[in-house]
């Protein structure tokens, strides 16, 4: 009997301490691609999140509570990502971060929506914000916003009448291609060649030959990093005429590094990148490299800014209320003056889409050079 009441007392103390401890933290799990096809993007995102979380915790956390984050690998598989999000939801989270792959997001955001938990995703597929989910928030342009910008450049800047499209056959590449072709059609630019490539493809000779045969005014390339580099090299080797255009990935530092000289002359639209001449972004890039030993791609920025957005909005409303957070974020604009961690002024609309400035750029002498800054769509 005595031991039982002692045990009960001990248990009560533990529970009290436990809940007291729980009051000190806020649970923000990260469900992200750390193996499989999305490993590179997911690793960048995760490291951006880690950097932000550590910085915020060092300054006392959000409203006095430290952020606790676990990183769960989706293996780039929607079925597994669903399991991981379910697991994250079981732990009563405040906000969920990730994934980056659109396929995974589409299946697991339904769960988050049902549980009324806000979710910050790195995915870019257009339809994610068109499914009536008031809890989903992007961290970069959806393809329905970035493609019109590059399409305008094709029509007005390059003044092309025909374009050859080269894209990678996964949901990133196909989604981009579909959006881009739609924009081309609505602007009266003819698609002279529609060339799909495989993820992980190494030999692009046949594809370059097809591009040459199409004789288009310009070439739009929408593939992942290594494939972009290999394509550029092959295109340069075979002497492809006409400007090579891309969207964010093609002009990124990684592609420039891997493609070497072949990247020079590439032009395009850059929605988000660690190479833009915004001081806050450059500072972030240096911090990231110091901590992790490599330079981040745009996914690192996405992860980093997402955590800071959550911090700012939560601090503004003064308490941890998920529904209120989602409501507050819709229509909210955060500037670097208000919250340095956001890096670039960002606005979320009522669908969860993002509005930011973006850039037109060209690769010159192995570096990304901004040629024009495009304003936000709203304002």
């Amino acid at each position, binding site marked *: 009997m005595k031991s039982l009441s002692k045990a009960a007392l001990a248990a009560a103390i533990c529970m009290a301490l436990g809940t007291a401890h729980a009051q000190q933290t806020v649970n923000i799990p990260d469900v992200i691609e*750390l193996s499989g096809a999305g490993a590179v993007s997911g690793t960048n995102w995760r490291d951006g999140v880690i950097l932000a979380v550590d910085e915020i915790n060092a300054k006392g956390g959000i409203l006095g509570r430290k952020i606790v984050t676990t990183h769960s690998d989706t293996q780039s598989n929607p*079925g597994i990502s*669903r*399991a991981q999000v379910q697991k994250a939801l079981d732990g009563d989270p405040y906000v969920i971060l990730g994934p980056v792959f659109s*396929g995974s997001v*589409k299946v697991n955001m339904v769960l988050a929506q049902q549980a009324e938990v806000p979710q910050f995703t790195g995915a870019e597929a257009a339809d994610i914000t068109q499914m009536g989910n008031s809890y989903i928030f992007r961290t970069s342009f959806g393809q329905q916003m970035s493609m019109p910008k590059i399409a305008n450049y094709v029509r007005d800047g390059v003044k092309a009448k025909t374009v050859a499209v080269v894209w990678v056959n*996964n*949901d990133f590449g*196909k989604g981009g291609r579909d959006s881009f072709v739609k924009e081309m059609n609505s602007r009266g630019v003819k698609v002279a060649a529609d060339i799909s490539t495989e993820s992980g493809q190494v030999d692009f000779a046949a594809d370059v030959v097809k591009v040459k045969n199409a004789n288009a005014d310009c070439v739009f390339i929408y593939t992942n990093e290594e494939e972009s580099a290999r394509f550029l090299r092959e295109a340069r080797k075979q002497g492809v005429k006409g400007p090579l255009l891309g969207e964010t990935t093609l002009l990124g530092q990684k592609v420039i590094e891997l493609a070497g000289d072949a990247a020079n002359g590439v032009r395009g639209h850059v929605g988000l990148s660690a190479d833009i001449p915004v001081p806050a972004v450059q500072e972030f890039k240096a911090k990231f490299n110091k901590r992790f030993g490599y330079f981040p791609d745009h996914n690192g920025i996405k992860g980093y800014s997402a955590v800071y957005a959550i911090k700012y909005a939560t601090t503004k409303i003064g308490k941890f209320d998920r529904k209120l957070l989602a409501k507050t974020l819709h229509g909210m604009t955060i500037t670097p003056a208000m919250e340095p961690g956001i890096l670039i002024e960002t606005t979320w609309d009522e669908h969860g889409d993002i509005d930011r400035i973006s850039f037109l750029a060209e690769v010159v002498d192995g570096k990304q050079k901004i040629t024009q800054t495009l304003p936000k769509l709203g304002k």
Partner: protein
Amino acid sequence: MKLTDRRVQAVAGLLLVGVLIAAPLGLKPHGIYLLSMWAVMSIAAIGLNLTLGYAGQISLAQAAFVGIGAYCSAILTTSYGWPFGAAFVMAALLCFVIGWLLGYPALRVQHHYLAFVTLAFTTLVFLVLRNEEWLTKGIYGISGINRPNLFGWSTKAPRDFYYFCLIVLAGVSWFTWRLVRSPWGRAFMALRENPVRASSLGVDTRRYTLMAFAIGSALGGVAGALYAPLVEFIDPTPFALSLSLNLLLMVIVGGSGYFFGPFLGAIVSVLLPEWLRFTDGLYLIIYAVFVMALMVVCPAGLLGLVEKIFKPLSKSGKAAP
């Protein structure tokens, strides 16, 4: 206390059933989801065990059949409004027929050649699922797959769907148990042990191998038909060669040709990586090392090891599970 003793097996079976029914009671939705995934994969592995473990045919096509079953059931229920029961049956039937048609030419070759032909088939099916957007919605996948409503019992909640999977698993297990014990089953095993002798005894080797292959494929289709409502979304990526290799792993690690092999193998392949997740970045590496070590220590699989422990002096008793 022999492993083949009927009573031992009956008790083990009852214990297993009891554990499976009680399992979700302490678990959160994530854990129940994993159990349901285990049940679905077990069904596919049972199919492969029939083809490989009992009939001795190395098939790497099982992932394609899971995919065909999943897409069949998803397309019929979402685009054409079929009731789940009908879609389910259709999925199994379609896979049986395709399995038969594939088996006809494929089974003329043996062993590693069959492995490569079925490997090619799996990759081809994946390409079709990905490229034929008009049918499968391509790389974007099919979302909003509803869980079935059976005679008024809604399986939408995690626990309900798990019990539904368990019922199907029980049905499949019972069917396979009877099949293996029937003259058909003995014919399969004769084929595996000594095809030449079997055919000299008048066993129509062609017919029986085809049968085993087709039934195994149909079971793959059944697993697929359950996979779609479990995840409530399908795209082509899970139904590629890596799933076939995974299912092969399940069958071999569990113990090829043992009745309970697929169950154990599915535990290793589906649940073990999840249990190892606490090691963060290393979990897949540890999993790989574990599988390699397991193969070195007990190449006959987990049940082979168990049997060795219980019967150290007898011959390898794979023939009579």
